[in-house]
């Protein structure tokens, strides 16, 4: 069974549906990129899958032993976080909040998990530093380490490279690819960068009003939608 199966999903804000009757599924080990213009419902879809808002129709089924709260989430940064007084360690540890159960404080197991994920992201040296003083790329690594504390299986990321310079962006993509290939973490990522999406992802979900595409990256490159967007973006970037 697939990790996530969305069937006939309708979602939106309040009573206004952004997209209707969307069906797709994500299998263990997939790397799915969700692309599309602003306002096409990418973030809303992600929030719906995460259970932050209720679907207006259709179903989202979790399979393959995935529990709903076993999802790691890398949200877009909020204004609050930009001047939040907290150390890297405090933030990464908060990724373990679901493991606390009824306990009030983090135990040895949670601290070990946080340390391990900090190491994985190459941020151990910064553990005592203040989050707001880090560079954009370092902040994303911290949030990624936190997300990894919450999950072993599935990461949802909302534009993880937005606002990063090209070198750091490439590093971030490599890091995510490594998590997917080497550690077998399933990735669902919202991206503006269709070029990178086609290069790294195994599957593409393209949202955009009437044009909805779901399939693997190869199929996307050869589809009408994919060709148009890929060519258009390539033209701009070349």
């Amino acid at each position: 069974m697939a990790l996530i199966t969305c069937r006939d999903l309708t979602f939106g804000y309040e009573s206004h549906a952004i997209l209707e009757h969307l069906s797709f599924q994500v299998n263990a080990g997939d790397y799915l990129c969700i692309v599309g213009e602003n306002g096409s419902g990418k973030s809303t879809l992600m929030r719906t899958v995460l259970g932050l808002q209720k679907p207006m129709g259709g179903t989202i089924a979790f399979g393959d032993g995935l529990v709903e709260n076993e999802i790691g989430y890398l949200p877009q940064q909020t204004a609050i976080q930009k001047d939040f007084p907290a150390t890297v360690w405090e933030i990464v540890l908060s990724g373990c909040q679901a493991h606390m159960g009824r306990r009030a404080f983090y135990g040895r197991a949670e601290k070990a998990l946080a340390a391990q994920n900090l190491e994985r992201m190459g941020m151990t040296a910064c553990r005592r530093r203040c989050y707001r003083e880090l560079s954009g790329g370092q902040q994303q690594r911290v949030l990624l380490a936190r997300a990894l504390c919450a999950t072993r299986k599935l990461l949802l990321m909302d534009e993880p490279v937005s606002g990063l310079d090209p070198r750091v962006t490439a590093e971030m993509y490599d890091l995510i690819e490594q998590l997917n290939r080497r550690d077998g973490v399933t990735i669902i990522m919202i991206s503006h960068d269709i070029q990178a999406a086609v290069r790294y992802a195994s599957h593409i979900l393209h949202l955009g009003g009437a044009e909805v595409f779901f399939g693997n990256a190869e199929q996307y490159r050869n589809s009408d939608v994919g060709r148009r967007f890929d060519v258009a973006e390539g033209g701009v970037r070349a």
Partner: protein
Amino acid sequence: MIQTISQYFQFPFVRYALVVGTLIALCSSLLGVTLVLKRFSFIGDGLSHVAFGAMAIAGVLRITNDMLFVMPVTILCAVLLLRTGRNAKIKGDAAVAMISVGALAIGYLLLNLFSTSSNLSGDVCSTLFGSTSILTLTQAEVWLCAVLSVLVVALFIFFYNRIFAVTFDEDFARAVGTRVEAYNLLIAVVIAVIIVLAMNLVGSLLISALIIFPALSAMRVFRSFLSVTVCSAALSVACALAGMLIAIVGGTPVGSTIVAVDILVFFVFCGIEQFR
């Protein structure tokens, strides 16, 4: 001066005032960081006005221990404000403004219409600015304040990690299954309790200062959530003690003296930040 202070310590009500004032200052500073960062500070301000209105009603109804009436009303309003903040047609800040200014107006109106006191403006002034109410607490009120303060501190310590998680990133917390609504509710209720307590110390208009200044000062200098929290608690207690002693010796109003000390410390910490 030490002689004057030790002379004042002979009076039990002065000792009570210092103990209760310190406890109130301690718990009011704890949620300051959360309030500032979650942009909840306006709710704190709104609730303090609600508490004033409730106090006026308690006065009209001649309820002897008015805290027992003011507390539930303020908690109820905190819950309502939090709910409307999310999804109502009237936006959160507008709802707060409506309720707070409304409560202020109705409170003063009621006091005027039904007042039994010969010194109405004195009464209103002491409710708004606290002047000396911390020195006139009855023994029952002293115990109530002490028990509630300890309860607030205990709750804060027990839920410290959750409060951090919910303050730093609500969406992430919700996505991993933390009951964010429940913790927001807890935060709102605790704020309401703190406000009613702090009313005795600094009066309803100055409560926000007591909650927010220590947190803002600590945030200038410290970089971790834990150190900011500990520092703001320590600052708040120190400022409250200093303010109360100055007020007793100098005969100045307690509330505004404490807030003045808080402001002074804030600028000192801004200076420290510059020189680091």
